[in-house]
């Protein structure tokens, strides 16, 4: 047989190439494939991150050049009363997102999983707002929330007074959260739905035979099966909402009377309205210190995925 010949023709022993050179050659393409990504990650992610750390101690001036400022940026940031307002607003926004938005996709995922017909259509309908561009959303909801828009028309037919959804300081943040929930719950719902549908049906069968009612089945089978996912989504939502600024900026620009000025929006305003990049960077560093822990928690939670 030829097999023996193949075995003796081991290239390392035959040609007598040194092991090290051979290894270099073997790994050459592996490294070459990594080089572009490593360069780009350094240039566009790691450099900004470290520049953030550096520039939070500098006055950033594009014309005259940067100059060292010590802790001035930090002390300015911490003594600004707007920062406290922004922190409160961000907390309020996160809280509203939890009580208005967080449970909605879970509830609808369970309900939609029980539909016998039209399940596909309902899924598409629920997800459709998510594919609408943000700018369309802003234009559309400005009209919906208008004092003479359809929502107030509906309220009018029910005999309720008109609500100035966007310009009333009590309503502005709630209106924003409601709009975002409307847009985003579809994607969360699909994730929960996949998890609900992956629960073995036999468990329900067994529970029913043992006499468990419908609510008991949801409480003791469905929700516990979703527990890890719910916790992960909670962390993701907290990470996401603590950085929210786009709809606040686009719809109300932080107003009325700073009630929708979130922390991230304040960073943006410091940089691009007051042109104080140093303080904006310092605010970003403070945010990183607070949120970094959450990122690590998220990593620990879905470790098996990496």
């Amino acid at each position, binding site marked *: 047989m030829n097999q023996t010949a193949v075995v003796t023709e081991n290239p390392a022993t035959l040609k007598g190439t040194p092991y090290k050179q051979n290894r270099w050659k073997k790994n050459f393409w592996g490294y070459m494939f990594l080089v*572009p990504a490593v360069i780009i*990650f350094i240039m566009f992610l790691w450099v900004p991150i470290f520049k953030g750390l550096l520039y939070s101690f500098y006055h950033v001036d594009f014309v005259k050049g940067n100059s060292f400022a010590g802790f001035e940026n930090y002390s300015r940031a911490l003594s600004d009363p707007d920062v406290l307002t922004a922190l409160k607003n961000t907390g309020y926004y996160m809280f509203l997102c939890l009580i208005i938005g967080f449970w909605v996709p879970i509830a609808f995922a369970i309900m939609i999983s029980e539909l016998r017909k039209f399940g596909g259509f309902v899924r598409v309908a629920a997800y459709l707002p998510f594919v609408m561009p943000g700018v369309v959303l802003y234009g559309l909801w400005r009209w919906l929330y208008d004092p003479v828009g359809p929502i107030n028309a509906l309220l009018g037919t029910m005999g309720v007074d008109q609500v100035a959804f966007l310009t009333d300081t009590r309503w502005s943040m709630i209106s924003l959260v409601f709009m975002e929930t409307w847009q985003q719950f579809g994607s969360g719902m699909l994730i929960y739905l996949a998890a609900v549908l992956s629960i073995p049906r036999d468990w329900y069968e067994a529970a029913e035979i043992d006499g468990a009612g419908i609510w008991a089945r949801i409480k003791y089978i469905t929700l516990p099966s979703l527990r890890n996912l719910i916790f992960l989504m909670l962390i993701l939502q907290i990470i996401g909402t603590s950085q929210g600024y786009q709809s606040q900026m686009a719809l109300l620009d932080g107003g009325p009377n700073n009630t929708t000025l979130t922390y991230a929006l304040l960073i943006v305003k410091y940089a691009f309205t007051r042109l104080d990049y140093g303080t904006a960077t310092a605010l970003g560093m403070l945010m990183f210190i607070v949120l970094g822990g959450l990122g690590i928690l998220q990593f620990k939670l879905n470790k098996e995925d990496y």
Partner: protein
Amino acid sequence: MKSADRGILSEHDLKKTSNKIVYGLMCVVILVMVFSMLYPICMTLFNGLKSNQEVNSFPPHFFPQEWHFSNLKDAMNYIDLPMFLRNTIYIFLGNMVVTLVVLGMSAFSISRMNVPYKRAIYFFFLMTLFIPATSYMIPNFVNLKELGLLNQYAAFWLPAGANTFYFLLLKNFFDGIHPEIFEAARIDGASEPRSFFSIAVPLSIPIFATLAIFIFSTAWNDWFWPSLVMHSEEKYTLATAIYKYVINVKALNTNIKFAILFIVSLPPIIVFLIFQKFIMRGVALSAVKG
């Protein structure tokens, strides 16, 4: 098997009247949800076809009383939509190419090639996930400015290769390809680049499609970052242009405004309806990693 058909409710449950009522209520809630999802979207279309007087009338009508299709033409003439569309497409295509080449190769290398210190390099990519993007948004802008990339398409194309989330999607996909295929190729004498380009890439079309949809929707929807990076009008993307010239303008007639909004939301909706399956699966993949 009957047990496979059932959900939380069984056929038996639905025979009880009280359960029937609850089930009926649930269907009503879902119906209301579907209505509240579709109504505003349909309104965008119909408002774009009404006369301006009708859009502003109170209470609003659903269907237009007169159909003004000329609004669409006025919308096209109000701002230079084709130019903004071209810019958006440029950014989408460039981002797509960079993502596939840079992240595809690196993900393949980490997933399927022999590289010493692989864990360390992998961790180098992964670490960036835990730093909240907003906290380095300003230094990122300053960095682009210092590199002289502002107002250039390269300011989008190059950083597209620094997306840890897409990197993970690609790596997980490559992990799922059977290693025997690459072993066989190696034994047959294929070089590493060859086994990437002629085996891994053709096998990865599904994940590339998912990525294409993500990248398309980012390029199409993102209005804030392009408005910072691009500061001359002829380089604005569609979303940025709409934000600057349509959303924040009071003088524009509401019906024309809606006609523009409708034109802009149409392509993503069509893409979504065509590639539904890909997208729905992509969502399940994506969200878990945020």
